[in-house]
C-alpha cells in the first residue's frame, strides 16, 4: 500500500512538474509577495540519502502545517513558507553550486548541509552572501569566528556522548568502552570527540581505531576485532542509518553481551526490522517522538509527515527542531531579518523560544558560547532513548551546557 501511494503521488508530481517545464528556467517569482523562501541543501541521493532526504521532507511537512494555519506571522505580515530542496549528492562541488542556487533565488535561510565536506564548501557561499544556514555537521570551523553564518542544527555528538557514557557508568557499571566508525569525515570526527570525552570521564577506551568502508555489508570481520578487546560498551560513532541495524545484529551474533549506543538520530523501526530482538536495549539520541514525552503537536506532525511521505521516520523528530527554531527566531527578530541576516544573528543571543514537541514544553534557545565563542548551536533537549521492539523508550532527557 505504501508503495502504491508513493508511486501515485510520484506520477502526479512528475506530470504537474512536466507541464511546468517551460516556466522552470531560473526560478519563478509568482508568489514573491507573501512567500518566504527557505532552502534545504543536503545529500538526497546515494548511500546517505537518508540524511538530506529526511531533512527536506521534514521541513516540507512542517512548512505545510504552517501554511495550512494560514502562514507565519512576522511583523505585520503573514508569510507562506516555500521550501526549496537542493540535492548536493554529498558532493562538495554540488554543495557549493547548490548554495549559490539558493542564494540566487533570494533564499536567506537554509537547512543543511548534512556532512562536513559539503558544509565546508557551502560555507564559502554562505559567508560571502550573508546567508544563514543550519548544517548538521560538526566541523568546528563552521561555527567559530571568523565564520558567523552557520548554526549547528542539532546536539553535537560530542555533547551527547559523555552524557550517555556517564549514565552508563552510573547505571550499568560500564568501565571499558570501544568505538567503531565508518571511515568518513563526520563519523571519524565524532569518534575522536567521543573517545576523548570517554577518557575524560575516566573510562578505559579499549578500541577506537577500527573503521569500516562505506558500503560494507558484512560487519563480522571488523566487529570480531573490536569484540576481541572485550569492551562493556560499544559506541557506533556517527553511524549512517543504513549500517546501524547490521552492526547491532553482527555484534550480538558474535556474542557481544554489553551495551551499545550511538549519538546520532536513528529510526527504531528500521533498526528492529534488520536486527530483530538483538536491537533491544540499543541506546540512541533522538527527537521527541516517543509516546511518553511527545506533545499533541508532535503527534500531529508525525501524522502530517506520514501522510506526506508514506512512512514515519524517527530521524524527522530531530530534524524538525531546525525549521522550528529558525522560524521562531525570525518571528522574534522581526521583518528586517527576512532580508538582513545580521538582524537575525543579533537576535540569537537572547532568544528563548517554546518547544512545541515535548509534553512538558520547555525552551528552545541558542548555545555554543563555550565551544565556539558565539551562540551558534541550536539547543534542544537531549532525549536519550532505548530501542524496545521497534519503539523508543525514553531513558532520560538531558540538557546542553551553555
Amino acid at each position: 500500500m505504501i508503495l502504491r501511494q508513493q508511486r501515485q503521488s510520484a506520477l502526479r508530481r512528475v506530470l504537474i512538474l512536466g507541464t511546468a517545464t517551460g516556466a522552470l528556467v531560473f526560478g519563478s517569482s509568482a508568489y514573491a509577495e507573501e512567500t518566504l523562501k527557505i532552502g534545504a541543501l543536503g545529500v538526497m541521493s546515494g548511500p546517505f540519502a537518508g540524511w538530506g532526504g529526511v531533512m527536506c521532507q521534514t521541513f516540507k511537512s512542517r512548512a505545510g502545517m504552517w501554511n495550512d494555519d494560514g502562514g507565519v506571522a512576522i511583523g505585520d505580515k503573514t508569510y507562506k513558507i516555500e521550501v526549496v530542496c537542493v540535492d548536493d549528492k554529498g558532493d562538495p562541488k554540488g554543495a557549493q553550486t547548490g548554495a549559490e542556487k539558493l542564494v540566487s533565488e533570494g533564499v536567506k535561510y537554509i537547512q543543511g548541509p548534512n556532512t562536513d565536506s559539503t558544509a565546508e564548501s557551502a560555507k564559502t557561499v554562505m559567508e560571502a552572501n550573508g546567508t544563514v544556514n543550519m548544517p548538521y555537521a560538526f566541523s568546528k570551523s563552521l561555527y567559530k569566528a571568523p565564520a558567523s553564518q552557520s548554526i549547528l542544527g542539532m546536539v553535537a555528538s560530542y555533547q551527547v556522548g559523555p552524557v550517555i557514557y556517564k549514565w552508563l557508568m552510573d547505571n550499568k557499571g560500564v568501565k571499558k568502552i570501544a568505538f567503531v566508525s565508518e571511515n568518513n569525515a563526520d563519523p571519524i570526527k565524532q569518534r575522536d570527540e567521543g573517545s576523548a570525552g570517554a577518557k575524560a570521564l575516566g573510562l578505559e577506551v579499549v578500541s577506537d581505531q577500527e573503521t569500516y568502508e562505506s558500503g560494507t555489508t558484512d560487519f563480522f570481520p571488523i566487529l570480531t576485532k573490536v569484540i576481541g578487546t572485550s569492551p562493556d560498551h560499544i559506541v557506533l560513532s556517527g553511524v549512517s542509518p543504513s549500517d546501524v541495524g547490521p552492526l547491532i545484529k553482527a555484534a550480538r551474533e558474535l556474542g557481544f553481551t554489553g551495551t551499545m549506543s550511538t549519538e546520532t538520530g536513528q529510526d527504531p523501526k528500521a533498526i528492529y526490522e534488520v536486527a530483530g530482538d538483538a536491537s533491544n536495549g540499543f541506546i540512541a539520541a533522538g527527537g521527541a517522538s516517543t509516546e511518553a514525552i511527545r506533545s499533541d503537536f508532535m503527534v500531529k506532525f508525525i501524522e502530517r509527515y506520514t501522510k506526506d511521505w508514506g512512512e514515519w521516520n524517527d530521524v524527522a523528530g530531530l530534524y524538525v527542531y531546525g525549521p522550528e527554531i529558525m522560524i521562531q527566531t525570525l518571528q522574534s527578530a522581526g521583518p528586517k531579518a527576512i532580508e538582513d541576516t545580521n538582524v537575525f544573528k543579533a537576535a540569537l543571543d537572547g532568544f528563548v523560544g517554546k518547544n512545541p514537541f515535548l509534553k512538558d514544553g520547555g525552551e528552545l534557545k541558542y548555545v555554543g558560547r563555550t565551544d565556539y565563542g558565539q551562540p551558534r548551536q541550536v539547543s534542544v533537549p537531549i532525549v536519550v532513548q532505548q530501542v524496545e521492539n521497534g519503539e523508543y523508550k525514553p531513558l532520560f532527557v538531558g540538557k546542553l551546557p551553555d
Partner: protein
Amino acid sequence: MQKTISMPNVNLSPSEQRSSSLKPIGLGLLIAAGYFLAIPLAFGANGYLLNVFTTMAAVSFISFGVWLTFAIGRINLAQAGFALIGAYVTAILVSRLGVSFWICLPLSGAVAALLGGLIGWPVLRLKGVYFAMITLCITEACRLTALSFPALTNGAQGIVDLPLPSELSLFGLTIIPAFEKGARLPFFYLAGTLMLLGLWFMWLLDTSRVGAVFRSLRQNEDLASSLGINVAKYRVVAFMVSCFYAGVGGAFFATLQQNVYPTTFQVLDSVYFMVYCFVGGLEFVVGPLVGAVVMMSSFELLHEFQRYQTVIFSGLMILCILLMPNGILSVIKRRSAKLEEASNA
C-alpha cells in the same frame, strides 16, 4: 600541398573524409567571446549562474584529459583520482607551507603528471575493460590513501579553510590581483582561461603529428609499433598530459571550495568526466566542453523536479546514449554534411 585527386570506383560521402567544417580558430574565438564577454554581461550579477559556468569550464578542462586517453583507446576512470592528488598537493602546500596558489596550480598538475607517468607505465599495457577497472581501482586507492595517512592529509577530516589566491606579481608588477572573499568573477575568469588554454593545447596536439600517432594507437597498437612508433612512450605521454589536466583541475576546485576531502573527487566524478566526453562526441576536441555544458546545464535545469531530478537526469543520459551513441557533435556534423550534400545536388 595536398592535391585533389579524383576517386574512381569509390563513392564517399563527405563524412568519410576528415572534414574541416568545424573551423577551429573561429570556433575558439567564439567560445572565448561568449565566455569572457557575453556571460559576464548577461549574468555577471548572478552568483549561482557564474558558479555553474565556472564549474562547467573547470570540469570540461579536466574532461579534456579523459578525452585524450580516449584518443589513445583507453577508458580512463582514474581522472578523479589524479584530480584528488592535485587538490591535495595544492591544499597541503598552500595551508602548511604558505606557497602561492599560482605556483601550486601548475605544480599540482606536474605532480599528478609525474605520478601518472609512474603508474601509467605498467598499467597502460592493459586495454579495454581491464584498463577501465584498474583505473577505477586507482581512483579508489587515491581516496583511501588520503584517508589512511592523516599526518599528511588530515585524513577524513579534510583540509579546510584554504586561503584564497593571493596577488600574482612579476617584478613588482601586478598581473593578477588577489582574489577577494566572495567575489566570483575571478574564479569565473580563471576557470575560463584554463578551459581555453586546455582546449587550445588539445587542439594543437590533436592536429599535430602527435595527434595522428595517438589516433593510430587507438586503432591498432601493433601496426603502429611495427612502424617504429614507440607505443609505450606515446601512451604514457598521453596519460601524463591527461593527469596534468586532472591535477590542475583538482587544484582549482580545492581553491574554489577552499577545502579538500577524500570525497572531493570520487569514482562517480570519473564516470561523469567520461560521460561529458561521450555526450559531446569522442571525435571532436570540443566534445568534452559541449558534453559538460549540455549535461551540467540540464542537471541544473532539472532542479525543479526535486527528488525526481536524478532519475530524470540519468534517464536523459541513457536516452542520449541510445539516440546519439556517437555524441551530439556527430549528429550536428552529419546534419551539416547532409545539408551540404543537398545544396551541392
